[in-house]
């Protein structure tokens, strides 16, 4: 069943890439990059999930469960969740930098259209 999450993450990544490639509004392009970041979060947390697992927040093992059994599959994988946390924090900083560049460019060129910005063409 978790495959649905993987497929949704792939679809979200494709949506973001389509936005980046097809739209000419610079803010829309940054929104597409945000969509691609969101798909990464979804993929990482879905990878961390194991069937019937709970959150990896443990004071004591539940009744009748040893620590060994816990480590082998009753909680979600905290390592991948921490990757996701790092990606969230870096993602918002990167988006802020993109938006600052877009605002500066738009105030200078008086246009948000990437097609008229000859200087930023590849």
């Amino acid at each position, binding site marked *: *069943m978790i495959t*649905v*999450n993987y497929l*949704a993450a792939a*679809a*979200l990544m494709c*949506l*973001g890439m*389509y*936005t980046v490639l097809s*739209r000419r*509004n610079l*803010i*829309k392009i*940054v*929104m*597409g990059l*945000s*969509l691609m970041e*969101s798909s990464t*979060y*979804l993929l990482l*947390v*879905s990878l*961390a*999930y194991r069937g*019937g*697992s*709970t*959150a*990896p*927040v443990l004071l004591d093992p539940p009744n009748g469960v040893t620590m060994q059994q816990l480590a082998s599959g009753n*909680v*979600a994988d905290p390592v991948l*969740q921490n990757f*996701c*946390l790092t990606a*969230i*924090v870096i*993602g*918002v900083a990167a*988006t*802020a930098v993109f*938006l*600052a560049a*877009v*605002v*500066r460019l*738009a*105030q*200078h060129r008086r246009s*948000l259209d990437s097609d008229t910005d000859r200087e930023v063409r590849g």
Partner: protein
Amino acid sequence: MAGLWALDCLVLAGILACGVLVVRLKNLNGATMALSGIGTLMTLMFVLLGAPDDAHAEVVVGAITLPVLFLLAIGKTRTDVRDVGDLGEVATGLTIAVFAVLSMRHDWAPDEADPVAQPDRYQDRGQEGQSQNRDCPDRRRP
């Protein structure tokens, strides 16, 4: 367990619908709100998948901070600013340099800082302030 997967599929459908809205909407503010909806639904998905710490970070960042950043950027691109040279970096650098020179020349001793005791000193600073305005004209005028 079946209820959890039903909710999972529901939230995924909502996320994809919001993603399509982000792509299709012409209105930038509306697209920003759809992005905020993605953040909110992603929070719910993280709670379902057993990641409450990620849900906490995502509800702060994805549902609040990111839309605020986008709305600020949209607002700032619509304001009309005065164009000063090539991206304005030269004028800004000149202003910073003038302020640095002024603050180095100023003596910060507390007993001399009385405008009644030394009125001529403050007059001098006023003239210097006017002279540094000459470097970048009209920057302080509306």
